[in-house]
């Protein structure tokens, strides 16, 4: 056979052999046979010297072209085999995607904290300071400075927990008002809320709790009127309960404010048409408020001729019960995780 025919035959045989190559071992054998230094093709190259000089160039090109063809075919085959091997490997690594992920599920929060945190965020955003009072108070701060006179029924042993003649468990977060006002020396404007625990001598039942939470708000400055109170509470209510909520004020009474009002919010469930949540009235009572009584300002160091202010107080449990449809306040304090799991915050 002419060397040129030998090259062609070799190419045909190589391509035939490559067809049968299916794994890495066969691939290596093929490479050794056709592409290595000691392969037949290399051997043919060795025969160059037997070829007339004028044909050597053409022959060399044929050999190199053939080699390139075989190499290209080999590489394509190699890639196919490797891809297949990878596919098999990956398939073997298949997992159950539906198993639970590895994380801590975020813990729940007692619903009262949800309310407190939301309110603190809203009022902090409106420029209120957050002030924290103490649970143990003197009757001077809890009652006297708040215009609750000595013989007022609220001061009876029947209604208030006493530690001694003058120490008691605060019955209202308003006690923190007086501390704060006195700390400001009767001069600085005040804008604060005070969240905290309160205590009253009530037997625990579905709607009463000897311990409960309140958030007290107080703004004192020159020219603070009921219009400021109304605007502030309107903004709060829209942020807390939704843009569409409205408020209305009803005349009421608290010893430390005058005038005093109860504040109702339009029912979120029926939008004011009347339903079982709002007992058909379209409105739900959510807080008490009013213009700070001149006596309170005076006793706490602010001249009522110069300064005025408004105050409000919200019951935390009541808001939590309304929002989440909780039927019994004792559930809040039982802290049963099966109950708490539904309440969360970021």
């Amino acid at each position, binding site marked *: 056979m002419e060397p040129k025919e030998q090259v062609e035959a070799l190419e045909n045989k190589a391509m035939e052999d490559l067809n049968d190559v299916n794994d890495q071992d066969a691939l290596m054998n093929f490479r050794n046979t056709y592409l290595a230094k000691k392969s037949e093709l290399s051997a043919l190259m060795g025969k160059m010297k037997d070829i007339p000089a004028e044909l050597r160039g053409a022959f060399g090109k044929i050999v190199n072209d053939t080699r390139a063809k075989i190499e290209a075919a080999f590489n394509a085959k190699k890639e196919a085999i490797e891809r297949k091997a990878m596919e098999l490997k990956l398939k073997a690594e298949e997992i159950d995607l539906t*198993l639970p*992920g*590895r*994380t*801590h599920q*975020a*813990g*729940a*929060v*007692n619903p009262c904290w949800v309310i407190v945190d939301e309110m603190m965020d809203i*009022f*902090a955003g409106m*420029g*209120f*300071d*957050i002030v924290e009072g*103490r*649970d*143990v108070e003197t009757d001077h701060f809890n009652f006297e400075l708040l215009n609750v006179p000595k*013989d007022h*029924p609220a001061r*009876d*042993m029947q209604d208030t*927990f*006493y*530690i001694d003649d003058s120490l008691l*468990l605060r019955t209202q977060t308003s006690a923190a008002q007086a501390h704060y006002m006195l700390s400001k020396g009767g001069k600085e404007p005040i*804008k604060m809320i005070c969240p905290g*625990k309160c*205590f009253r*001598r009530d037997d625990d039942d579905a709607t009463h709790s*000897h*311990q409960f939470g309140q958030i007290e708000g107080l*703004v004192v*400055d020159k*020219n603070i*009127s*009921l*219009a400021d109170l*109304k*605007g502030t509470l309107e903004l709060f209510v829209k942020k807390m309960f939704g843009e569409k909520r409205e408020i*209305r004020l*009803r*005349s009421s*009474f608290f*010893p430390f404010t005058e*005038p005093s009002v109860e504040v109702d919010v339009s029912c979120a469930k029926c939008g004011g048409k009347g339903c079982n949540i709002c007992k058909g009235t379209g409105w739900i009572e959510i807080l008490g408020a009013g*213009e700070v*009584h*001149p*006596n309170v300002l005076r006793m706490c160091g602010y001249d009522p001729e110069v300064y*005025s202010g408004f105050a409000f107080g919200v019951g935390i449990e009541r808001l939590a019960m309304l929002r989440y449809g909780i039927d019994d306040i004792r559930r*809040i*304090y*039982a*802290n*049963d*995780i*099966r109950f708490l799991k539904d309440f969360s915050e*970021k």
Partner: protein
Amino acid sequence: MKISLKWLKEFVNLDGIEPEVLASKLTFAGVEVESIDKLASGTNLVIGKILTCVPHPDSDHLHILNVDEGQKYGVHQIVCGAPNARVGLNVIVAREGAVLPCVTIEKGVIRGVESDGMCCSLLELGVDKKFLSEKQVAGIEELPEDAPVGEEDVLGYLGLDDVILDLSLLANRPDMYAMQNVAMEVGALLEREVKLPEYKEYSTGKSDFVVTSLTDKCKLFGGREIRNVVTKPSPKWMSDILTSMGVRSINNVVDIGNFVMLLTGQPINMYDADKLLGRTLEVREDFEGEYVAMDEQSYTLAKGDLVVSSNEVPMCLAGIMTSKACAVTEETKNVIIEAANFFGASIRRTSNRLGLASDSSSRFVKGLNAEQNEKVLRICSALMVELADAKEVLSCDTYDELPHEKKIIKTSLAYINGRLGTNFSKEEVVSTLTRDHIVVKELEDGAFECEVPYYRIDMGGEADISEEVIRLLGYENITSKLPEGGHKGGYSEAQKNKIAIRRFLRNEGLTEVLTYSLVDLKKKDAFEYIAHGENYRLINPLTDDKEYMRKNILASLLETAAYNYAHQNKDVAIYEISDVDAKGLEGRHLGIVLVGEESLAGKLERRTYDFYSVKGYLEGIFSLLNLNPQRFRLEKLKSDKEEFHPYRSAMIYAGKDPIAVLGELHPNKAKELGFGKAPVVALELNLVALLDMKTSEKKASVPPKFPTVTRDLAFVVSRSEDYMNIKREIMRIDRMIVDVDIFDSYQGVGIPSDKKSIALSLSFRLEDRTLKDEEVSAIMEKVTGMIKMKFNAEVRG
């Protein structure tokens, strides 16, 4: 307070005003109407006369009646079960289609006999049982012989066509416990005229009977002597009013007292003059001993209880209840009427202590106006003459130590508008106050003088005047605005840190709880490690289990965890931040309790909670607050209380002060608390101390220029050697050692039981050049030598 609209109409014209509208106006003005109730109700009613009455053949108690229902409706056959049904009786018939409070009447067949309608009792028309006699409850109502047969306005005929407003009153409106003042309020709200009844003065002279007071708890005591009264049933108009107002009619004399109280708000007490021990009544508060009241119960009185005595014997527990000895009866001829002003707080304390209250005592408790005593006595005497045939009225000298000044409040238009945030005109304000029965005198410069009605004892200053304006004109007149001024506000650093800690713990899967701050005797000193002091103890606890303010919170948290453990939650991870108080202590603690296992991926991957779980949270908090852990010192907890596991618990100190206790619970304690054998881990941390610590300013750090070389070192040492101590000693050997980390700690098979195997990774680095291998090896040799020498370690590999 129940208000009869029928009676109210005698004073104010309510034409065109629906009860709902009136109720709403009152409510918005601060006089809340809790409910609107009909005294009785029923449609399709008619007065009938029983013509025939024969026993039902198929029943032992039913009768078959023929009832004449007048010209319009004729005679109908009715089957009736009432025992008092009889021929000739006038009855209330509910005809076919009648809607009664509990039933709708239909034509029907009762045991084979047709029945068309029902004869009714007042109970069936909705009248409260307390106003009815036993006979009235047991059978059908027996109407008088002259009752108009065929009359369809039966409720009107009976005086039961009344609507009752039930007022829920606040402490500032005690005046609303008087019908006359309710009328004034309604007049102000509706802008209608109020006409109060006038009563004639029948007093013909002075009585020698003396009424007086020996205590400053009663500064006003007036009396009248009424002679030769005749006790008999009250006229129907009066008993109807009393029924509507929720008071049962007894007899004319007793009813007059109640009527005057309902009208004026002034409680009236009556004594049988002939049963008193002398011709004086004096109020005192120094009586001690037994007292038998009109209810025939005996009460033990103490000093401070106000009594009205005659010859030093108490005749009346002042303002609350007369004694049995001198109460008026059907036989009473001569009466002493008392109208006094007793100190409310005294009455309240006595009333609460004895558990004895009345309509009268509650009026004293809420506060009485003292400016109408003479008028009240006049009304009472007049009614005694007109309704009880009294022959003689004599006036006693009134004991009166009160100043009786006119209440005049000075204010101005600017003040009122400024306080309310409104823009009312002078005319609006003046006309509003005027219709509120305030006498306004205009001064110069928009100032007013307001003379307040005597019954408005709640009003004391100009703020009260502003409230009158807005409650009558309506809060909807206020245009909302926001406070001006640039107060910055927002959270303090400590508050932000607290929020961050809470968020961190929740993200770690812990649930935030809220527990009671009051605890029992057993819990008050439990888990007392980081805060001490004598507990605050209530002098008036409601129950034994809530008697002390807590000074530490783990006991409460463990109780909450145990509750959940007992209620199908074997794995519990909870925390709480709470104030703690004791004498000399104003603290705030964070408590964490972990029970069972931590879930890393559902139930698939779980890890049992142990000491390192809570330690990790504590270290996480230090890191979160940018507090260098080296500022804290850990020491084994030394305690003989068997609360914590003695070898798996620690105290953390910042300087000298303990700021945290943490550890696994002692197995005996865990069992005692109801956790069985489940592992329980707890932490209590003084947050005040932590949040007060100065944190170092954060500065950007430059990554090291030269590479870090690491070498591992494994050895076996005694179990009692602490890792932290070994690390500290290694770090001291050379400044090239920049860190030591533990990556294995093992005790168990293959290691002697008193030993443990430790594997450390040491990091070496210099800031100014690359380290040479020989240098590191040389230091490693020193390290090995040191731990052999100092810790008696056996170096492996």
